[in-house]
Every structure is written in C-alpha cells, then in structure tokens.
C-alpha cells in the first residue's frame, strides 16, 4: 500500500512538471504580456523598465530554467498585478471554491443517487419517465441561465436570498443548486443505466432465488456493484467543478479561485495562471487517487500492493 502511494505521488510530480512546462511554453505563444500589463500612458522606455522589473526581459530559455528552479522550491512566482505570491492568492481562495463544490456535490449525490436507483427499479413506469424528463431539463439548461433566473426569483422578486457573495449558509443555496442541477441529472441517468445492467445479471437472479428481500438485493448487491462507475464519474465531476465553476462564481460574485484565474487570464498575470493550473493538476491527481482507493473499499477484489 505504502509503495503504491509513493509510486502514485511520484507520478503526480512528473505530471505537474510536464503540465508546468506545457503551460509555460503555451503562454509564450499568446503574445507579449506587456500589451495587457503596462498602462497605455507609459512610454516605450518605461514599458521596458517595467518588463525588466517583472523579469520578462530575459530570453525564454533562461526564464524557463529560472521558473523550473523556483517551482522545485514550491515558489510559483509573484503576481504581476498584486505583488503577492501567486500560490498564496490561489490558496487564499481555494477553500471558498472547495466549500461550494463540496456542498454542490453533496446535493447532487443526495438527490441524484436515490433518484437513479428509483428510476432503475421502476424502469419504464411513470416515475422513471418523469425522472428522465427532469434529467433532460437538468442537463440541457445552461448554468448561466439558471443562475440569473434564481437570482431574479429569490433575490429580486421574493427577497429571500442574497444575490452575491458566500458568507452565510443562505448564500450557498442558489450557487450550490446551480452547480448541482447538471450533476443530479447526470448521476440519475448514469446510476439508472448501470443499475439496470447489474439487475439483469445472474448473481442478482441467484440472490432473488435464494429468497433475499428485494431491499437487500437492490441496495446491498446491486447498488454496490453499480457504485464503481458512479464513483469514477463523481470524482471527475468534482475535479471538473473545482476548475470549472467559473460561470457560477462570476454570476454570484463568489471570490473563488476560478474567477481569480479568469481575471488573471484577461490581464496576462502569468504567475497566477500557472499557479492555478498547477493547483488544479495536483487536485485532479489527488481526486483520482482517492477514487482508486475507494474502489478497494467498495470492491473487496481490488487490492493495491
């Protein structure tokens, strides 16, 4: 087990270095950062002075070596805009995004999983049809539209919920629901179809034949087997939300890391962009590891040694 964890950590490190290199080189192709960084009213000579102060005057390969050296020490550079360490800026906002995504995932699982099971055991009855209809709505409604509609209804017309920020439980309701809607629908559909597959298998027939209660058959035998693909998708969705909740963060003015990264992208604040992508890469690696470990927990046949 320990050996397995060490190997995985080592793989993650390699992946991070590769990602960092790709991003560093990719950003070089987006043009001169001073176009966006330097104010219009500075003279060319003054812009060059600023370029030097930011360390952007050196040839690319020297900038790269310096960047990798610093990266090895966990230093992702200083934000051009704020003058603060880029990693600190991202990590400062990480918990906000994390909390929001956790609440959304929780809502999605609490609703999506049971609804999927319900739809599967009543396949092609009205409950199933109704749930499938809802899930189509959930999958196709754009996040942007849902967010604005929720704000109009609950903040402007009813005055029940605050429209921006994330400082109390009330603030979580609308953005978390906005993010979870698509996932509820996704989980519902996927749990339904894997459950249907499992329910048709021989061991389920055996379980029923030996007289087990239907409840036990469904929840203990069938669901457990349907959980493996579910956890894989849920893990991926978690990662995707952490790095992709940008529209929701923008609509509800939530100070999360996605919004920071978007602003950095517009302003060409490269250290912050790189820090965001590296944090995201590490996060994905961790999520995948957790998912793999969960497999072993659910399926006794899986062993990591």
């Amino acid at each position: 087990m320990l050996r397995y964890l060490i190997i995985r950590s080592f793989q993650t490190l390699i992946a991070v270095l590769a990602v960092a290199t790709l991003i560093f080189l990719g950003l070089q192709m987006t043009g001169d950062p001073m176009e966006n960084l330097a104010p219009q009213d500075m003279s060319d000579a003054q812009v060059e002075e600023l370029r030097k102060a930011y360390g952007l005057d050196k040839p690319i390969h020297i900038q790269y070596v310096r960047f990798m050296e610093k990266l090895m020490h966990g230093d992702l550079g200083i934000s051009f805009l704020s003058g603060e360490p880029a990693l600190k800026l991202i990590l400062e906002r990480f918990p906000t995004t994390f909390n929001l995504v956790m609440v959304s995932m929780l809502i999605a699982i609490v609703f999506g999983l049971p609804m999927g099971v319900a739809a599967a055991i009543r396949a092609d009855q009205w409950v199933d049809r109704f749930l499938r209809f809802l899930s189509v709505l959930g999958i196709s409604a754009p996040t942007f539209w849902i967010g604005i509609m929720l704000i109009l209804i609950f903040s402007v017309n009813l005055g029940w919920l605050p429209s921006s920020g994330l400082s109390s439980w009330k603030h979580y309701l609308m953005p978390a629901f906005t993010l979870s809607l698509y996932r509820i629908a996704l989980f519902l559909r996927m749990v339904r179809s894997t459950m249907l597959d499992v329910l048709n298998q021989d061991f389920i027939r055996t379980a029923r034949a030996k007289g087990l209660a239907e409840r036990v058959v469904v929840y203990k035998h069938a669901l457990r087997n349907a959980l493996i693909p579910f956890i894989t998708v849920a893990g991926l969705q978690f990662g995707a939300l952490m790095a992709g909740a940008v529209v929701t963060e923008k609509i509800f003015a939530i100070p999360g890391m996605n919004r920071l990264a978007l602003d950095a992208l517009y302003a060409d604040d490269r250290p912050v962009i790189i820090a965001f992508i590296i944090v995201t890469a590490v996060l994905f690696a961790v999520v995948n590891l957790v998912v793999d470990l969960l497999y072993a927990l659910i399926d006794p046949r899986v062993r990591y040694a």
Partner: protein
Amino acid sequence: MKRLWIIGAFILSVAFAGGDKLVVAYQGGAVTLDPHMRNETTTLAWQHHIFETPFFFSREGKVEPVLAESIENVDPNTWILKIRKGVKFHDGSTMTAEDVAFSITRAATHPKSQMKGYVGKVISATAVDGETVEIKTKVPDPLLPAHLDHAAIIPKAYFEKVGEEGFAKHPIGTGPYKFVEWLNADHLTLVRFEDYWGTKPDFKNVVLKNIPQGATRVAGLLSGEIDIAEKVLPQDFARVERSGRATVKQTAGTRVIYVAMDYWREYGSEGLPEGAKNPFLDPQARKAVYMAIDEEAIVKKIMGGAATVAPQFLAKIHEGYSPNITRFPYDPKAARKLLEDLGYGDKNGDGWLELPTKDGKRVPFELRIDAPNDRYLNDAQIAQAIASMLRDIGIKAEVNAVPKKVFFPNMTKGHFTLYMAGWGSMDSINTMLSMFHSKDAEGLYGRFNREHYHNPKVDALIEQAAQTFDPGDRNDLLVQAMDIAMPVDIAYIPLHYENVIAGVAKGVDFTPRPDEYLHAFEAKKK
C-alpha cells in the same frame, strides 16, 4: 408587550445600521492596495478612498489642489510645492513635506511603478522645509500639477516600518476612509476617518464589492443589498426605474468611441481586396465614411441612450475642446457622391462602388471593419451598424469583431484598414502627442497613431502646446491643432462618448463622475 419592545429595538437598530452603511458594487476590483503599482481605473477608484494626491481633477475637468496648497514653477524644470497644513494620516501622524517628497519619488522611480506615464519625468523631489517640496524634472513638464493626480501620498515612517508587503496588507493614507479589511479583487471594507481634513463623507461604513456580472449588480440594487451599482446596462434601465427602489444616473463620459482609417499604405492595406488602392488617403473619402454614419441612430437604437453623440475627439471637460467643431451632417447620398467624384463609382452596375487596382483593373469596394467585441459597451453591434450604413452607400463592408486580447495586438501591428476603438484620458497633451502627432523613429511621438496620421502644422502646434506653461495659451494652441485635425483632415471619425452610468438606491444621492472613478465618499444621504 416586552416582546414588542425587543422587536422594535431590533428594527430600529437594523434601520440605523443600514442608514450608515453604503455598499457599492463595481464591475471589477482593486488588485492591489499599494497606490503606485497598478494604473487601472477600478484599482485607483478603490484606492482613492484611502489615499489622496497633491492635485486632482474636479468633475468639471479642472485641476484642483488637494494635499497641496499651491504650486509654483520657478524655472522650466523646477517646481515649488507647498503642502496643505494640518493633514493627518490614519495613524494619527501629521503629513509632512518629507512624506510628500518620499511618495512622489517612489511613484516616479520605483522599478514596478505604473505611474511613470504621469510622473516619470520627475528626477527628484526633496523636502526643503516642513511645508515645502522642491520637484525637479528631466524635461519641462507644464502639466506637472495635473500629473501629480497619480502620485498618492503615503506616510514615510509607517511605510519604512512595515515594508512594501506590510503596507499593501494594511495601507494608511490621508483619505476620507480608513482601511478595515479586504480580499484582493473581491471586496474592501472601510470606515470613515474622523480626523479627515476635508469635508467628512455622510456614510460611516463603506463596503466596495466586485460583482462582475451586470445582471447580478442590478439584482443586488433591486433587492436592497447594494446602494450604488456601477455600469448598469441599458437593457436594465427600465427595470431599475420601474422597481421604485432605485434610479439610473448618467453623466457624459470622457471616453470617445471613434473610427480610424489607414493613412499610410496606398496599396496592400489589409482590410481591402488584394491589390486595391486604399481610398482613405484622401480626406474626401474619410469624409464620405463620416457622413454615411448615422450616429444619432447608433446612440438611440444601439446604445439605448447610454451615450452622448461626440462632435470631436476630446470631450467638453478636456483641455483643448474646440467650440468651433460640429459634426458633419448624416447624408448618405452626399457621401456616395463624394466617393463617386473620387473615381470609385459603380461602373459595372452591380450596385457596389469600385476600387482601382495597381494593374488598372477595378474590383468591388469590399471593406473589412475591425472591432473588439468585449471592450466597449455594445462594441460589436456598433461595428455591425456602421457596416450596414456603409453598405447603404455602396461599400461592401463586413465586420470582423474579436476579443480585445486579439484585437489590440493586431491594431498595434497595423493590420487594419478601418477599425473602431475607444480612447479616454484626462491629459489632452498626452492624447494629442500620442494620437495626433506624426510617428517618429524614437517612439516619443505618435505612439498610438497607428494609422500614421500626419500634418506638419498640427505637429508644430502640439509640440508648442506641450511646452507652454500658461493654461490659457496651451488651450488655444490645442484648439488650433484640433480645428485642423478634425474638420479639415478628419484624422478620426468621432462616434460618441460613453456615458458613465450608475444605478443608485432611493435613499442615496449620487451622480457618477465623467472620468469613470466611482467614489463612495461623494455619495450623500437623502
């Protein structure tokens, strides 16, 4: 009965707390609270609550003393500045000439200072005595007082004690509000500075918030969470007014949206058919485009009234605004005639005007109009409207609207023939030097004159104005230059000034400034 009392007290406390707190929503947020490191409107607007500068522009565009009492120019390169007496910093210390000299020097010389476009000519600022600062410049700068509007004054002793990073974490200035707490680019909480030297603001507690989405800002305004919302979009005006909770306030801004044309390539201009002659070298062709644009319609239909028709490049409150310039009338027939008279008429009868090519053929007058699609209010739609107006006079115009990140680098590289962009600066000398003066090899003049507009007479007038210390004479010279550049040469086609717009809650009295800085301390209780 007791319960009623409690409820009553609760309602009262909420009402009073609400009445003393002002929440302002911006489209962006300050990225740093170090006042010399980022020259961008929202960052500066947030910082203005904490810091002040020796001089600042009034709403009418006049340069007024703030932390300075007076300034005198003793020789072209030397200024004597008297500081305002009895000004206190938020830590209780009194502002001295030493603080002022230190701050100006930092803004002018710090390697990462973004204020050099304003105070970069300063080579030294030294305290002569407790109240006097001597400022020396490399070259004469007649506009130095105005340029000091970007030199925020900070307390030297405190700054040296806490260092650069510590200062940005807990900044101290002389402004009407004191720093309480903030999250970078998200919000800034402030409390009124009771020892403020000037008129104390009405609201004791202020929160400045970054709410990037226009619809969310309006929602907050209508639900009562926000008292002032910046940049309400025209499509939301009616909803705000109907709500009875807030109203929309507009001021004609200083940012002009304009059309620029290629002035330097006879052949090979990239927005025209291959090999076609560039017609825009002739002022009559530029005039034709000008007269083909129905700007009143653009302001009314596309801008929803959120703009003001611009007769010229500079705005009314700018130095150098000429009272002599009016717009050419909208007259598509006359516009088409101008082009036909230049020999671009429709000879093959397909309805489109034609351009000659180098090898003597004629090709349809096709034109690519370049514009950003995420920089100015309704920018892509304006470009579309111009294209359809040009099609009406026989120019086969198509719009290429792209994100600003793509647009501006291409504009700098001169890849355009006819494009739409915007310009806003309170410094008319800077505007004239960089947009109207011909380009030079060293890049000192005409830095943003990407179309290579050039007229030696205009150049001479601008250069002379840039060296003139008397404000009245300087204004006259700029007006003379503009009277040639705009109506005669048609260096640019002005479209409109973007209005500065704010949604304001009913209990608050506030009108936005033309220079786009939104200041909570200018809000009054009603």
